[in-house]
């Protein structure tokens, strides 16, 4: 049988989704189900003097209106900074527009929304802290006065780069803003909670049913056995559905109180203010280098806008610090960070979570060095690359890069783009005022995939960094795989089946993958950090191999041979040397459940594997973006986008391509379109998709994508994961291209998103001799 790993198999999950047969949380209709809706703060920062719920509660078909005082059993949202917990319903203070202050329960969501409109909250406004500048100013208004500062967490730089910077022949600074983005999954967040006498059942649009169960168990003091969490079809998460939201406990507590199932689903405008945002970093960077473009020292200070509460955002700048040096060998790297509170939507993980911010930073540095020295950006990259024999490579903070060959991806990229031809065209276009300017931007990036091991994940408040799979061979010869990861668009049902098919020598259609239900699946960790294939895939392989081993023993018994002498090929077991005298999987599976024919063997084939990775993996790649820039309007058009990814072994080229395209689309979105903005008073200005500009397919270029494969030693598949690579690769490829288009005018820096007006202003400023 030809290998299924590496085959471009079409997705098993698509027929259901494409014919509208998927089940999302909002599709659930339970008997007696009620709907809840939050009254959300209209103020960025205020004391709550009182909440008037009478008019709302009096509406027909409203079952209750509750404030924090009415629900003393509500636990707060966990935090990594003790003392700065976020209450699930605001008590006496609100800290961002959109923070829930009360909750309405009604027969349907229309009535619930009518009731929400009738709740009046008496606010005593406090000074807003809409941005980092305000938050860090002398005498700034404090979000948590008792904390004494808006700095929620801080890691001072370990060491001093000054000597190395001073010793470098040249040095330069950059101040980079990695703007706030909204993950904006197609399906907003939602839960249904049904707390019956025996069990609390929660359906949630989340990235890990097991994580949700663990949290609920802890927060509500209910044993695991009393909670079942189901993640049905989930329409995108991008990291934000790994964050913890008040709906989980509010819906549960209300369900217990009212004895009815409770549904809570966000509208799009709610999603844009309530779901965690991503990125939101300012980076102060200083680099020392020589005339040949060799980088000698790098100092990075990351300031993370955490939003109103210190949640997942506290960990993000640490990941940025770890990855600051990118794929380069830099003798001195010193990094520090702090996470700062502002009266804005809390910030959390968003596709790449801290690593895209690092890749942006170092790749902008590389191009700055190229601009300053006149050495071609490709050459600067080559001169600084970690060589292929440098792995495993330990970075300045002790993190280990597993494997890589950065030159290989770049070489392939250069073959694909015809670099010299592009440079010639660029020069010709510069000379011809009737044509748009042209720019060529590169991004040679490295990130983290296969997120684990446990030591790292425990630090982030997770149960661990391992993953699990259980393989059950059914009596008809089909296999049911239960996996601890929880897909939300990635196509795991297909990819995991491919891995299992190879391990079991079974056709793909005999393998069913189940996930996202704590009652059906053994304990698992979940899907984030590009870990599902690299960690979960290995668990799948191991569980499959164990099932195969047991099946082999059954077959050996039936064939009256020693298990060591039994082989499995093309779905048939046979004694080595006599392939014609074999038995098929179906028979072996069936007999495995008939003790009368099994001799001393224990009946059944069902085995689990828990896999703890020894290493995080480091997917990498080389991407190139070619842009046209309208000289008069500043409009940027992507003319080509070419990417070579190295995620080690590619399990399915089709789904891999989908992952890269989606990620690159989000990266292009960040570079050119998207930014969450707040007004001076802390009011969100981008709370609908008319203002928050998520681009569509119409804005995307044709993608030219390929892979090179440098396997990881971290798992037996050699697969590194690639869910976040595209989003990590693309922003700087685009920005570098636009700056390259304008560099002859003296433009050295532009902040994302590169709106036509921003680019136009940079051109104007350069033309007037000013600095852009």
């Amino acid at each position, binding site marked *: 049988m030809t290998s299924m790993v590496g085959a471009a198999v079409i997705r098993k999950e698509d027929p259901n989704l494409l014919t509208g047969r998927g089940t999302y949380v909002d599709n659930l209709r339970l008997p007696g189900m009620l709907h809840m809706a939050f009254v959300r703060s209209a103020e960025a920062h205020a004391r709550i003097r009182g909440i008037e719920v009478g008019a709302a509660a009096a509406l027909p078909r409203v079952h209750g209106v509750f404030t924090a005082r009415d629900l003393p059993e509500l636990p707060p949202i966990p935090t990594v900074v003790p003392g700065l917990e976020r209450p699930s319903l605001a008590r006496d203070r609100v800290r961002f527009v959109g923070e829930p202050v009360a909750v309405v329960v009604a027969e349907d*969501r*229309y009535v619930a929304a009518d009731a929400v*409109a009738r709740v009046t909250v008496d606010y005593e406004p406090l000074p807003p802290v809409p941005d980092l500048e305000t938050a860090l100013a002398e005498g700034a208004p404090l979000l948590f006065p008792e904390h004494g500062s808006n700095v929620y967490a801080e890691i001072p730089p370990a060491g001093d780069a000054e000597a190395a910077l001073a010793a470098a022949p040249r040095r330069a600074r950059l101040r980079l803003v990695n703007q706030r983005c909204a993950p904006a999954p197609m399906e907003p967040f939602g839960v249904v909670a049904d707390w019956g006498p025996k069990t609390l059942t929660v359906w949630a649009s989340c990235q890990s049913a097991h994580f949700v169960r663990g949290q609920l168990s802890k927060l509500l003091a209910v044993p695991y056995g009393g909670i079942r969490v189901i993640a049905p079809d989930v329409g995108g998460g991008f990291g934000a559905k790994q964050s913890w939201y008040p709906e989980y406990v509010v819906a549960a507590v209300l369900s217990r109180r009212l004895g009815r199932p409770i549904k809570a689903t966000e*509208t799009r405008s709610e999603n844009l203010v309530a779901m965690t945002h991503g990125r939101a970093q300012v980076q102060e960077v200083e680099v020392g280098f020589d005339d040949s473009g060799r980088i000698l020292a790098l100092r990075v200070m990351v300031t993370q806008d955490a939003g109103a509460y210190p949640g997942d955002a506290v960990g993000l700048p640490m990941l940025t610090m770890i990855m600051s040096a990118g794929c380069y060998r830099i003798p001195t790297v010193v990094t520090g960070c702090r996470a700062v509170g502002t009266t804005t939507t809390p910030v959390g993980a968003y596709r790449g979570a801290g690593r895209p911010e690092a890749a942006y930073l170092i790749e902008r540095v590389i191009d700055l060095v190229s601009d300053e020295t006149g050495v071609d950006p490709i050459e600067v990259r080559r001169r600084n690359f970690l060589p292929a024999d440098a792995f495993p490579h330990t970075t300045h903070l002790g993190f280990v890069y597993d494997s890589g060959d950065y030159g290989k991806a770049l070489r392939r990229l250069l073959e694909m783009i015809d670099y010299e031809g592009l440079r010639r065209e660029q020069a010709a276009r510069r000379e011809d005022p009737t044509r748009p300017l042209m720019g060529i931007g590169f991004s040679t990036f490295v990130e983290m995939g296969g997120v684990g091991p446990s030591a790292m994940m425990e630090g982030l408040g997770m149960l661990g960094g391992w993953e699990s799979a259980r393989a059950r061979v059914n009596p008809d010869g089909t296999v049911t795989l239960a996996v601890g990861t929880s897909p939300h668009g990635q196509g795991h049902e297909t990819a995991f089946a491919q891995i299992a098919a190879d391990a079991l020598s079974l056709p793909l259609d005999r393998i069913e993958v189940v996930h996202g239900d704590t009652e059906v699946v053994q304990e698992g960790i979940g899907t984030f950090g590009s870990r599902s294939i690299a960690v979960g895939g290995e668990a799948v392989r191991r569980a499959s191999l164990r099932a195969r081993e047991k099946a082999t023993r059954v077959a050996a018994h039936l064939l009256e041979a020693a298990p060591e002498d039994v082989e499995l090929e093309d779905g048939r077991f046979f004694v080595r040397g006599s392939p014609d005298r074999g038995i098929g999987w179906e028979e072996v599976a069936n007999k495995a459940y008939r003790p009368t024919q099994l001799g001393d063997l224990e009946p059944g084939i069902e085995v689990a594997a828990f896999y703890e990775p020894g290493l995080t993996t480091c997917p990498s790649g080389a991407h190139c973006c070619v842009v046209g820039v309208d000289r008069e309007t500043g409009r940027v058009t992507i003319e080509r986008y070419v990417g070579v990814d190295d995620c080690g072994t590619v399990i399915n080229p089709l789904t891999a391509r989908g992952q890269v395209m989606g990620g690159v689309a989000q990266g292009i979105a960040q570079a050119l*379109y998207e930014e969450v903005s707040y007004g001076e008073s802390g009011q969100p200005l981008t709370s609908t998709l*008319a203002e928050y*500009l998520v681009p*569509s397919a119409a804005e995307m270029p044709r993608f030219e994508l390929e892979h090179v494969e440098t396997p990881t030693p971290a798992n037996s598949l050699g697969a590194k994961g690639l869910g976040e690579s595209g989003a990590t690769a693309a922003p700087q490829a685009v920005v570098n291209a636009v700056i390259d288009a304008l560099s002859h005018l003296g433009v050295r820096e532009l902040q994302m998103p590169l*709106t036509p*007006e921003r680019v136009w202003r940079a051109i104007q400023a350069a033309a007037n001799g000013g600095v852009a």
Partner: protein
Amino acid sequence: MIPAPFEYARPRTVEEAVSLLVHHGEGAKLLAGGHSLLPLMKLRVAAPSLLVDIGRLVDLRYVRDAGDHVAVGALVRHHDLETSPLLEREAPLLRYAAGFVGDPQVRHRGTIGGSLAHADPAADLPGVVVALEATMVVYGPRGERLIPARDFFRSTFESALAPDEVLVEVRVPKVGGRRWAFQKFNRRSIDWAIVGVAAVEADGGASVALVNMGPIPLRALETEAALRRGASQAEAAALADRGTEPSSDLNASAEYRRHLARVLVRRALEQVRR
């Protein structure tokens, strides 16, 4: 979509629609394609107490040759405009511009009547009918009246329609032989114009309308006058933002809008008069 509560009526004739509007008063709103009204209702920015759904008045869905003009029924969808051979012949600017409204889904639902009545300063078709000097046919309790396009738009989201009147037809002068141009500058293909320009060749120059350079679609009067004086396209275009009052928002500052108006008008003029 979670609007405030409302009543719903589906009249079978325009007369019935008008009588519903008259009887219900202020709170009644016509519903055509719903692609401007429903988004406002779902944000509860609009909360009409009665929706008078004229969406199925097929009698108002026609594109007819009416001698010196093309008669376009108010319920003609953007997609109908975009694919009309008659318009392609007689008023290709309108046909072409309709293809830039939103996305295919919007174009299959949204109507020309709704688009004009809504009077969004960022909408495409109001600028087009102003450049083409079309005439609106309006029906109400006092019968029918004609309103030239230049008098139809009053302010942001405000037209010359009385609350109990229905826009029934748009009369578009035949301009088949003349050169024309449509320039729309936006960030995503689905978006409204940051600035737009609709221009048609006219005696001694061009009729040039600007989208989103003020509360209503404006004619670039100084540009038009300069062309009549014989100024070059570049000279005339440099005057395009005179007399406009563009706003500043997340997409663009007023200053940038003025710049865009000058650039886009020049590009339009280059297409109109080569």
